């Protein structure tokens, strides 16, 4: 019995050496370890052996069994890679193996792409802006687009017949109801409902009766920002906007504040960034100035606080507003604002 087992072991070792493919290893496994395999045959003989031999023979069979299992496993692992490729070739070339063995699977054929859509580029910009300001603790709020003159003008320190109204041509619905010409309306709506501290941004659609051309649209998007608390300063405004600009446009982009005028802020500023296209050396995008205007900002005017019954001596705040189309056009070098509303798939799919 033991001799026979030794002979089996020698056979196994010899056969292992000649194994080259996975299927050979599988066959070896079946031949020795299978239900009708040689080792199984030995096992069946055990009960008929004398009791004193059973343990030794059993042990021997078990170790042989372990050896075969181990070897087959190792061989399988090695063969697996080759095997997978073989299988794939077979699968993709159909009956190629039988009919035309020389056909080769072309791994460079184009992949089968699932269709994926895109968010509108303006949504992407708004989302990016929201993301930056959310990390600075700003909540996102929305306000109505159809507004009363009070929210669009009076409460924002733009009295009727004031010359600054010229800067805010507006679509009217009737009497004192209009389409908001700026998202600053949301400032008032939020401050009416809430006491400081306030930290919000308000994205949304705004409307101005401008004839449509490459630079103008009667409808466009703005994002308004407002922060009100005790001790908020112009330096904080500069800090927050600098943070936004560096995050959104890039660490090497420079910021410049220019004095300007908005009825609802004092001091007011227009904020430029160094032209990312020409790096400040001058090009057509920046009108050869090296700077491009991206937003308006300032400290909330005490008259605005008055209209929402805040104590302007105790609280200070800053506000800013930016045009989403403008920023998107700058970022991607888009030269015509109308593209945003034509929704040509060839345009939308680029972003």
């Amino acid at each position, binding site marked *: 019995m033991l001799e026979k087992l030794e002979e089996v072991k020698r056979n196994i070792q010899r056969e292992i050496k000649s194994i080259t493919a996975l299927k050979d290893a599988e066959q070896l496994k079946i031949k020795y370890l299978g239900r009708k395999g040689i080792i199984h045959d030995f096992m069946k003989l055990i009960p008929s052996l004398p009791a004193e031999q059973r343990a030794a023979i059993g042990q021997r069979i078990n170790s042989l069994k372990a050896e075969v299992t181990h070897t087959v496993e190792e061989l399988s692992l090695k063969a697996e890679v080759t095997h997978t490729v073989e299988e794939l070739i077979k699968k993709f070339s159909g009956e190629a193996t039988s009919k035309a063995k020389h056909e080769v699977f072309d791994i460079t054929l184009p992949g089968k792409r699932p269709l994926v859509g895109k968010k509108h580029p303006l949504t992407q910009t708004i989302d990016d802006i929201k993301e930056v300001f959310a990390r600075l603790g700003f909540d996102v709020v929305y306000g109505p687009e159809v507004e009363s003159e009070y929210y669009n003008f009076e409460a924002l320190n733009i009295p009727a017949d004031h010359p600054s109204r010229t800067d805010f041509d507006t679509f009217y619905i009737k009497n004192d109801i209009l389409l908001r010409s700026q998202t600053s309306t949301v400032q008032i709506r939020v401050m009416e409902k809430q006491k400081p501290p306030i930290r919000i941004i308000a994205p949304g659609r705004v409307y101005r009766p401008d004839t449509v051309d490459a630079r103008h649209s009667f409808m466009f998007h703005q994002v308004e920002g407002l922060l009100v608390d005790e001790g908020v300063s112009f330096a904080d405004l500069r800090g927050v906007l600098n943070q936004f600009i560096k995050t959104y446009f890039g660490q090497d982009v420079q910021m410049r504040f220019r004095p300007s005028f908005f009825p609802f802020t004092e*001091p007011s500023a227009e904020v430029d960034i160094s032209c990312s296209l020409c790096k400040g050396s001058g090009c057509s995008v920046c009108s050869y100035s090296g700077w491009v205007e991206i937003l308006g900002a300032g400290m909330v005017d005490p008259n605005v606080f008055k209209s929402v019954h805040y104590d302007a001596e105790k609280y200070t705040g800053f506000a800013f507003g930016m045009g989403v189309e403008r920023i998107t056009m700058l970022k991607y070098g888009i030269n015509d604002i109308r593209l945003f509303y034509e*929704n040509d798939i060839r345009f939308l799919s680029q972003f």
Partner: protein
Amino acid sequence: MKISYNWLKEYVNFYLSPQELADKLTNAGLVVADIHSVEDDFCLDVEVTSNRPDCLGVIGIAREVATMVGASVQLPETNYINTNIDVSKLISIAVEEPILCPHYTARIVRHITVKPSPDWMQKRLKCIGLRPVNNIVDITNYVMMETGQPLHAFDLDKLSDQRIIVRRARGGEEIVTINGASRALFHDMLVIADSKRPVAIAGIMGGKDTEVSASTRNIHLECAQFEPRQVRRTSKVTGIASDSSYRFERGVDPEGVELASKRAVKLIKDLAEGEVANGNIDVRLERYETKKITLRVERLNKVLGLEIKRIKRTVASDILKRLQFNVINEVDTFIDVEVPSHRGDVNREIDLIEEVARIYGYNNIPTKTSISVRGSVKSKYEIVEDSVRQFLIGIGYYEAKTFSIVDASPLQSVNLWSDKGGIDIANPLRQEESRLRTCLLPSLIHTKIYNMNHGVERVKIFEIAKVYLAGEKLPQEKTCLSILADVDYLTLKGIVESLLTCLGITSKCEWMIFGGSILFKADRSAKIQLGNNVLGYIGEAKELELKTSPCMVELDMDLLVKMSNFSKKFQTLSQYPPVLRDLAIIVDEEATWASIEKCIAATNVSYLTGINFFDIYRGKQIPSGKKGIAFNLCFQAQDRTLKSEEADIALQKILNALQETLGGELRKQ
């Protein structure tokens, strides 16, 4: 405002190239939008914000330049020799509306020679885009551009009775203005009239009849102030926007009349000869009172956020002095100033803070990064909006953005959400954009057509935007999600169903026959009911010159937000295998899947965990008027392997119910 580089140099000494000057002005808040050379001069196009009418004259710009370079402003020559004849003997003035015309002055020059103005003056006017007319008209324009104070010269001999009355227009009055246009005048307009008729629309434009012409010998030089809002209203109503109205609307220097009037007379005397009458007629409502403001040094630094490198009191007061503020009192903690009359925009401490900051340099103020820590949480609306977008772009849909203002065509007038009409714009630019939309789908159809015409045959698009429904005072703004895609009805319906699952909306929708509209095909459209609310409308698009027949859906986004539920709880996975039973039943053509589902649900059989439709068929084996529906049922227990017999009992119960309720017969294989 356009200014001439050479002209500016007449009032202030500076050593800056046109470009350097432009940069400095831009950084001080006067954006120079353009510089171009005109002969031996440069024209700078300065954007003057509406709060700074004092910069609507070269002298005003010179004041800014002087502040920046530390120079002083040289005012122009105004001395002239006059005759002994008093102005009051030559003209009479009556101001009937002193509120609307708080200041009116008249000076008279007689025996003038009207001729072209000298080259140097013509050159400057041309440089800033003004057309030279004759010496008198050119001088009034020149002095307006110099001082910012508009003037008007009348032909004295053409003024009836040499009388000027500043009054409201009377009904039925008309005037032909110097540009030749005839205007009807109304009672709310202020006019300059002689004893018979209006001769000018106050502050806006003079009349043709009394203008200075080649034959003019004697002139009345008007230099006045008009109430800004009055001028603005009249300018809007008449549609006349002049250099004069532009300045009066914004407000001129209340103390500026004297300088401008004398300066103009001086130039007339020099360039048109003539004899200047003695003195002037000056009708003034009230004396100008100088504004006094206190600037607290502490407040200045606090608002600007300067802590270590503070602006010292001396620095602040120096800046204000350079800006021609009169410092009347100055101690460590505050500065009292008198505001120069030309700075109508400076009324409060915060305005002084801006002035100091502006000259100190906005960019010299640090960028502080010490705002307090605050957590921001996404609102439910934002979460839903993000989820919807992510879901749709993930399955291949593009987001569109279309205009909220549309035309009033029948297609755009579709209103799925309300019986009331659309909201019209009172002052539309074009008929194409004259109404707020009540439905997003027509815009998506237009987007589809646009793409079709540009070579993209099939589209999958969506938009999240508002529709505007007539309401009480303000309209109701309803946010909608609309989808248009070249897919079939069931595919789009499936997308809606998956979307609801994605938003955690587990309540079942009812899909009810909608009956079609201008948008949808009657037999392939549905109203989607979610609980007691209408979630939206879905259907196949009618043939609207589309090559394909896309499907569309418009959903109430606000309802999606309300019903969405993102709280999740883990459910134990069953250890035990399900028992599946396929069945095919034959029912009447009219029987709906919904009725089958409802019937099965009503049996309340145990262990039923799923009903999955997989086919509907009609054919030879099926009697006419009937259809076969194939589906499978899934039975599963959480705590043990369900026995086949248990499933069979349940199945039988279901088959019985289908038979009783719908007459459904099990189809024999």
